[in-house]
């Protein structure tokens, strides 16, 4: 049923896009970016999954041709991606706080000094 994971991950990415495009609250925009990240993380981890595989942890000599395990590379990629996602959230929230101090609002429609 790995297809279900793929569908869900793209659903999450699209949901993230939808949130960013339609929500006028800055905090909700940040939430949308996080949802988008989670969707990609789910996609990465699903791609590395082999049904019935063991954890990819072997000591020297244990690894044989017959070893059947999940792909470790996507797991490493997911960890990187999660860290980056956390940084994005932290950075955007700090910007949101400063913008709330400066503009006194969180409505994106009013935060548009730069235009044209």
């Amino acid at each position, binding site marked *: 049923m790995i297809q279900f994971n793929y569908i869900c991950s793209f659903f999450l990415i699209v949901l993230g*896009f939808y949130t*960013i495009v339609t929500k006028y609250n800055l905090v909700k*925009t940040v939430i949308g970016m996080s949802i988008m990240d989670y969707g990609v993380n789910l996609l990465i981890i699903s791609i590395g999954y082999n049904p019935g595989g063991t954890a990819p942890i072997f000591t020297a000599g244990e690894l044989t041709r017959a070893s059947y395990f999940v792909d470790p590379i996507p797991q490493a990629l997911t960890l990187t991606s999660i860290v*980056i996602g956390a940084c994005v959230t932290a*950075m955007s929230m700090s*910007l949101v706080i400063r913008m709330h101090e400066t503009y006194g609002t969180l409505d994106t429609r009013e935060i548009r000094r730069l235009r044209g």
Partner: protein
Amino acid sequence: MNFANMTDYHHFPIYAIMVLFLGAFIIAASGGKPSKNPNNPAGFRAWIALIATAASLCFLAALIKPVMLDGEVIAYWMGSRGISGGYAIGIALEVDALSLFFALLIATAVFVSAIYSIRYMVHDDCVPQYYVLYCLLAGGVLGLVLSGDIFNMFVMVEILTFAAVALTAFRTKVYGALEAAFKYLVVGCMGSTAILTGVILLYAQYHTLNLAQLASLIPGTMNNATKLAFAFLYIGFSTKAFIVPFHPLAADAHGAAPASISVLISGVLTKSGIYGIMRLTYFLFQTMGLGRMQFMLVFIGSVSMFVCVTMALAQHDFKRLLAYHSISQIGYVLAAVGLASALGVSAGLYHAMNHTLFKGLLFLAAGAVLHETGTTDLGKLGGLSKKMPHTTVLFLIGAFSISGVPPFNGFASKWMIYQASYQKAVDTGNIGFLLVTIIALVTSTLTLASFVKVSQSVFFGQLPKEYENVKEVPFGMRLAMGILAALCVVTGLFPKSVTALLTEPAAKAAANVGNYITSMGFKTSLPAVEVSFVEAGVWEPINWLLILCIALLGVTIVAVAGKYDHVSETTSENVETKYQLFYGGEENVYSQVGGGDLFWGFKHNWRHYFDFMHKLHSGVVNDYALWAVVALALAIVYMMIAL
């Protein structure tokens, strides 16, 4: 390869990246306490940043001989973990002429901007942190262009996006800085997510992340998943290059960031996006042979050119105007690269190089004006040539270069782009490419017009009373501008040597993908391609007559189109005495011709277009995000049909 020898030039790429990250680390570890020296609040940290960028530039310059002249592709496997069982298991740096070309551009811009930063940032607080981010940004971009691993490219994209966003918001008190940074972050993250999705889709298909191996596997095995990956990657790198429809972000970010960072955003970040697109289309997917792919890049390039130059005409802020011009010039680069002819690629890269030089110079000049007067509003400035003669001369060199006035470098590269697009039209018999030549010419004219306006409203005309005490900028800032101006002149005077040394090897590398793959140790069936840079046909006088006729036709059309509006002009505009014949003009003798007034006739005739564009660039982050989503959707649909 001899790994024991630390001075072996094969190690230089990783040194070039490492010194920058090391510099960032040392500066961060040294704490944020500002120094006592009022002329250099960052103290020794500024010198660390300067030394790191200089060292990085030296390491890359040492690679010119083996990579550019001898045509070697440097394959550097981290920790000597290379290929096992036909699969790349290690992380590689792959430096071919194309990578090195962009890396040299980046290192030069970063070094010059670091010189400038020392005196430019004196009025700011938290300057030590500025240098941390500065080194991170430089290291991220350099890592992106030298990397041979597509996931590493994504990581570097994220590093540079973070550093760029933080630096955009660095002057938090500047009008709109936070807002610009947030918009950039949101759309930039959508782009990064798109890149990651593309990377992982490719990994799912080919179980490798190495660029050379992907390039050996992908062509001929394209399915819907790889097409989807291509669309995602393309849009991801487009957001980094700020090409249409992502240009509003660039304008916002440039306007708000310190000038030394604007140089990096325009000269370095956009190049990283162009590099990504080139690596994608020429190497990984090798789709540039397809007419539809060429059409897409040339079309987007031409649209970027024209839309951004007209947007620039309507701006009232010095740096925002320069920002739109920056993307307009990137349109030239993309259109030339999209021609997929050796001459086109060479011309595009040449223009990319010149863009870094003259745009850097112009942004530094804008920064000098901001540094002394405290404003970049074109309506408030004027007459600064009396007070800042050196800056004025340097600015004019940059303005002539960007407008394509001989003998400066902008002329040489634009000339090559005209030739390349014309040649392409002759070769393929497709009239559409001739249209590109015309758009490029018209854009160049509008650029010139726009810079006449800037020079008039900033450096010439009446000096406002409040700027009576303005002084010339410090020597450090003039030195940085002087280096770029000298490079502008040199690369303009010796175009043949510059193309032979730098851009033609890079164009050859883009044509010889097979060499790139085999140098990394993978198998390929791609033959070696002989590349020639012919410019035949273009010099024939009859063709020039043809172009002249077309240009005249264009002028006539504009003139005729202008007449239609004379009826409506009488209703509202003539009520103001300002525009009346003979009796018009400004009432106050001390007020000068402002930036908005100089081309009021042109802007009046085009007012519907400008109104439309002004409404479109609404400044709401949701709108820009929507453009990104629409662009992604269109790209996916187009790739599914075209590839």
